């Protein structure tokens, strides 16, 4: 939800955010799915200063005096969705010069006014891990975004405790990253190139350690090695594209050799090596496709991977993603629903859209469940989350409404229509107009 009128914009910037944060809002009467606890049939959620203040059943939670009461009876209220793997924002990270480019940041590439972010709001997605594609062994640093309306990317990115923009590292194996030299041509070469790069980073670290704080002895700054060190230290999680069973096992092997934290992404054949995944305690950010194939490494995709991990006692390893534009951000709920169709429980499916994903981004202290103190990121749904007939009616981020299906200008992001494919600043001029 964003107006194009500069004056209104200025007024909003001056007044609304502060006011919205100070005034407590109480959402009353919905079926509340806190994810961190059992569903509450007639619930109350109180938010203030962009955070959740209280969650509970009617009668057990006090509505603060002077609070703005929002009646949501008949609706379902659940945490904002966490998309652990998205390509919205129109950004490209690494270029074609090399297969491994840890120095490149999506921070420097994302268009924060891209229509894809608006469509993600319309799908209830409030947190995204935006990354480069899988055409590289390592295509650069991902960026974790809070999906609120912003003027610059600086306002949108989550931050590490030291204030640096927060994200992981995108890696890939399998077929997408095999190309003409200098890219690898085989799986063996792919792994060898990655190992060499990690060894080089370890060597760089040895030099830094040996300098023992003596600036004259420090090696020269190397952006790539510095990012690699953030992987080796565990600060930056590797988000690893991998589909085929042998490719998945290769990722686990490399992760063990170098000790990096990894989230497996797509994992089309997780169902074939679920035992190994569970033994390695490797979180899986799963894609859910309508049809197997489309490329060789996805030929044995099966939506039952989530169910298989759950069956082995590891539901916490299950999350989902859109991979937008592979699947549509506006239908993210559908991905979890199709996993239920394939056998996973509804409970795991819903956690896989929210809390489990938040954990895979080191953001579970802030988002992913409705608990006091967490960010006031939530969605209001017309009904049961995993029904085809349910619509996302409202999306709230840090206590501010960013999407409302009842508003014509917002509806276009949910359904499409004239101007829906354009960046938001250019699009809103045309909403509702017919072209003759």
């Amino acid at each position, binding site marked *: 939800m964003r107006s194009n009128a500069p004056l209104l914009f200025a007024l909003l910037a001056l007044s609304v955010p502060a006011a919205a944060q100070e005034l407590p809002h109480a959402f009353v009467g919905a079926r509340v799915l806190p994810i961190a606890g059992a569903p509450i049939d007639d619930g109350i959620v109180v938010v203030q200063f962009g955070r959740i203040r209280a969650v509970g059943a009617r009668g057990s939670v006090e509505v603060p005096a002077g609070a703005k009461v929002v009646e949501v009876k008949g609706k379902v209220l659940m945490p904002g969705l966490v998309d652990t793997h998205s390509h919205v924002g129109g950004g490209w990270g690494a270029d074609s010069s090399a297969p491994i480019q840890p120095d490149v940041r999506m921070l420097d590439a994302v268009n924060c006014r891209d229509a894809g972010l608006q469509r993600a709001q319309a799908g209830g997605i409030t947190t995204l891990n935006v990354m480069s594609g899988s055409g590289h062994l390592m295509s650069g640093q991902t960026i974790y975004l809070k999906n609120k309306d912003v003027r610059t990317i600086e306002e949108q990115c989550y931050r590490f405790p030291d204030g640096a923009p927060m994200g992981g590292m995108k890696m890939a194996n399998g077929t997408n990253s095999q190309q003409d030299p200098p890219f690898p041509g085989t799986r063996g070469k792919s792994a060898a190139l990655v190992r060499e790069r990690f060894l080089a980073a370890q060597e760089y670290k040895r030099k830094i350690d040996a300098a023992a704080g003596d600036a004259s002895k420090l090696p020269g700054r190397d952006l790539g090695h510095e990012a690699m060190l953030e992987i080796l230290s565990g600060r930056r999680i590797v988000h690893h594209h991998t589909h085929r069973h042998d490719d998945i096992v290769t990722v686990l092997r490399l992760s063990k050799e170098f000790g990096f934290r990894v989230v497996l992404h797509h994992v089309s054949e997780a169902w074939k090596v679920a035992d190994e995944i569970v033994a390695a305690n490797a979180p899986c950010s799963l894609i859910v*496709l*309508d*049809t*197997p*194939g*489309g*490329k*060789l490494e*996805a*030929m044995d995709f099966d939506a039952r991977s989530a169910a298989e991990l759950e069956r082995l006692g590891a539901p916490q390893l299950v999350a989902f993603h859109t991979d937008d*534009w*592979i699947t*549509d951000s506006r*239908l993210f709920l*559908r991905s979890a*629903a*199709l996993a*239920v*169709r394939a056998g996973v429980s509804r409970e795991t499916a819903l956690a896989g859209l929210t809390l489990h994903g938040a954990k895979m981004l080191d953001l579970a202290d802030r988002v992913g469940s409705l608990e006091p103190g967490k960010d006031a990121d939530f969605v209001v749904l017309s009904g049961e989350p*995993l*029904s*085809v*007939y*349910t*619509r996302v009616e409202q999306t709230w981020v840090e206590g501010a409404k960013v999407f409302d299906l009842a508003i014509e200008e917002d509806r*276009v992001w949910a*359904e*499409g*229509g*004239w*101007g*829906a*494919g*354009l960046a938001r600043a250019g699009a809103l001029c045309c909403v509702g107009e*017919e*072209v*003759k």
Partner: protein
Amino acid sequence: MFKQVFQVVASLALALPLAAQDLVVRGERVHTVSGAVIENGIVIVKGGKIVAIGNERQVQPPADVRVVSAKVVTPGLVDAHSVVGLAGYLNQPHDQDQHDPTGPIQPELRAIDAYNARERLVEWVRGFGVTTLHTGHGPQALISGQTMVVKTRGETIDEAVVVPRAMIAATLGTASRTKSPGTAGKQLSMLREALLGAQEYQKKLKAAGDDATKRPERDLRKEALVDVLERKAPLLVTANRHQDIVSALRLAAEFGFQLVLDGGGESYVVLDELRAAKVPIIAHAPMARFVEELENASRSTYRKLADAGLTFALQSGYESYVPKTRVVLYEAGVAAAYGLGSERALRSITLDAAKILGLDARLGSLDVGKDGDLALYDGDPFEYTTHCVGTVIEGVVVFEGSR
């Protein structure tokens, strides 16, 4: 009426031996599509055709015939436009026969010469209740070739085919642009020239009459386009931008061919024109990626087409990448949820699809005399968490399980 039908069934049952194409299908809810939903319905298929349908009081199933049951039964789904069977799931050069890039206008390419009946995508969609596919050459060339209608069964094209040549597939917009045609103007110029050439050929054929010595040399390309001019095969024109849709209407008016509009991403801004031309529409999949020429497409289009009184069907369409095909069952569910409603959405992948293909006398609804093609579900077919539990083609169970 049902009683009479049952008497017919009874006499047939006595007269004929038990055959592989005999089956009784029971459903707690049977969606006939042509009529009301039947609670606790029974459909009797004999020799591959529906011979009786009704509730338990109206229809008595014959003994010794296999019975399959499900919560919900619908007609077998008809995917109004696909490339499945020409396009394979691996998406490698060897399994992509829906587009030959060597020429912009190749209406002589027959779908029957390119269909892989054992392709995994055929098996895949069959497992969701799809029994009929309108498939063939894809929306990637100005005229990419012919389409056909098949049932999703058989190990060869001959066992699958229903209509060997259904339509001739043309495409406007950027999808069919190469070095030449490289613009919209050139695309229309080339189409007009090809149709004018076919008109000349048609004149020579007529002038020769039965005199074989005077006939022009056989020209497969022109023969196919003459059939378009003579309305023996519709021209299926994929157009999504409003200006391309209007161009297709203009072309159809000039040459008098039967136009079926495919895609129609911006059809909602030219509803009056489409209504005036009485053009049936095979509308883009609601989950097709709304990029490039679908950037203004909308999931509310279907409701607008319905309200405008237009005939339309849904399709799985063509996808160049993951997923290699969409599933019309899923697509119709999304259309239903975005304003079309379940009843009309089901019609758009059964009876209305059959109508546009000219096969509604045989397919698309559960009526006596029609093919015994049915889909079985364990709940509302459109719900994400419902499973297809059976697919029947002409009385033969071709899928059993839970998908």
